[in-house]
């Protein structure tokens, strides 16, 4: 009898708890931590939701995981920053079409003491080579995210293989941008981060921007509708509405208007 009672209680609990399953006019956006952690979605989504009545649910993970989740059809829209991977995603038929959405840039941040002496350098590659040469600690995402992919491509241009020093001066956190910044600040290690995360990051300690402005540090975000032919569960209409809105003048203006501490975080460049 006790068992039966527990059983029905269980069922009731599950039903009650399951009531909040996503409804028809909702989409899931697989996105990156940099956009979510910077607060961009908190700025954009209320406008969009009020206008269209579509609920946007953002899952913020590394770009690599976001793309993998989208490949599993666990999202309607992909909004990430790793152009080659995004183009591959579309070429594989998983995405309908890729659009440039906005950009910002990557930075090299580090402790005030700057043991490798890279402050003020404008050549990112040279700065990385100098850090490697000095043996000063460098904290890497190491998680196949967009930022990590970018960092690896910069290293490969320098000819230095930092992973050979993994665990020594080169420290792969395998974590998100914020966690990696926390780790970097904690151990006084240089970190490559996107500007949006850095500006909104609140645990900077004595860290500051040391290297910025190199063309190589350009950070382009793209947006893709997951292909409903591959993934029948995709809410194509609502997903397309969201993408259209982001790319519209209104959406682009909204992106450009987002500021933290008086600084613009993302620069819209759809159709540029």
């Amino acid at each position, binding site marked *: 009898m006790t068992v039966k009672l*527990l059983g029905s209680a269980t069922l009731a609990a599950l039903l009650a708890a399951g009531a909040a399953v996503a409804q028809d006019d909702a989409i899931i956006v697989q996105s990156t931590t940099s956009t979510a952690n910077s607060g961009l979605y908190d700025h954009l989504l209320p406008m969009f939701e009020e206008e269209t009545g579509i609920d946007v649910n*953002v899952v913020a993970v590394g770009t690599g995981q976001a793309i993998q989740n989208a490949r599993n059809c*666990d999202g309607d829209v992909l909004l990430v920053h790793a152009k080659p991977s995004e183009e591959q995603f579309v070429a594989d038929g998983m995405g309908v079409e890729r659009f440039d959405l906005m950009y910002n840039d990557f930075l090299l941040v580090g402790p005030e003491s700057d043991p490798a002496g890279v402050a003020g350098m404008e050549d990112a590659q040279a700065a990385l080579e100098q850090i490697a040469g000095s043996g000063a600690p460098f904290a890497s995402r190491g998680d196949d995210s967009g930022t990590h992919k970018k960092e690896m491509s910069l290293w490969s241009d320098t000819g230095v293989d930092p992973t050979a020093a993994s665990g020594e001066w080169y420290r792969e956190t395998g974590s998100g941008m*914020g966690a990696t910044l926390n780790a970097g600040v904690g151990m006084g290690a240089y970190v490559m981060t996107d500007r949006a995360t850095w500006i909104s990051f609140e645990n900077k300690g004595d860290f500051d921007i040391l290297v910025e402005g190199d063309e190589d540090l350009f950070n382009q975000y793209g947006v893709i509708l997951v292909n409903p032919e591959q993934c029948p*569960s995709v809410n194509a209409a609502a997903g397309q509405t969201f993408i259209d809105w982001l790319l519209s003048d209104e959406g682009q203006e909204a992106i450009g208007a987002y500021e933290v501490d008086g600084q613009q975080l993302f620069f819209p460049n759809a159709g540029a």
Partner: protein
Amino acid sequence: MQAIGQALALALSLVLSGDGDLLEIVGLSLRVSLSATLVACALGLPLGALLAISRFPGRNAALIVVNALMGLPPVVVGLIVYLHLSRAGPLGFLGLLYTPTAMIIAQTILITPIVAALSRQVLEDLHGEYAEQFRSLCLSRTQTVGALVWDARYSLLTVGLAGFGRAVAEVGAVIIVGGNIDHLTRVMTTAIALETSKGDLPLALALGIVLMVIALGVNALVQGLRMTATRQAYA
């Protein structure tokens, strides 16, 4: 130390202001973890009882497995549930990924072995005391289990609390299958993880304090219930 003081003050002001987002997150945390605890008890108690009173070939192996599963890493549970609930997975058609239900499923898997293993121990100890008397009374297996569960109910409450504590405190599983979606699947632990990654350590810590106070509240409630009931009918 200064950070902790700051966090305490922030936690207090968060609670006192009755912040809507905070209440929503706290509510979802409780809903998800209490549901998972309830389901885990519905599954784990009978399993624990079966292991406690039955002797069958392979029982020892079953005990080792159940005991070992108490140490299931949440991330692994999250991953396994994700792979099943993903649209590309065998249960994808249910559309449960990134819903509270998915989080309940993951936490249930995480804590059912805890409930089963601990209740097995509690019930087996009690059965050791009752077994001969029950055999003399020719009780059926159902009657035996019913009597054991009823007489051990206060110890089993503690077992349930252990399960709830593990569920409400874990982040690895719910962040994968829930996605930490604002207003949909964000719970206390994923919110803490988020604020930590934003570098807002005082807010993260303040949320952590709120979570601990909630856990404390639930435990105090159950303990109070237990003590009242004990005074009335149990020794």
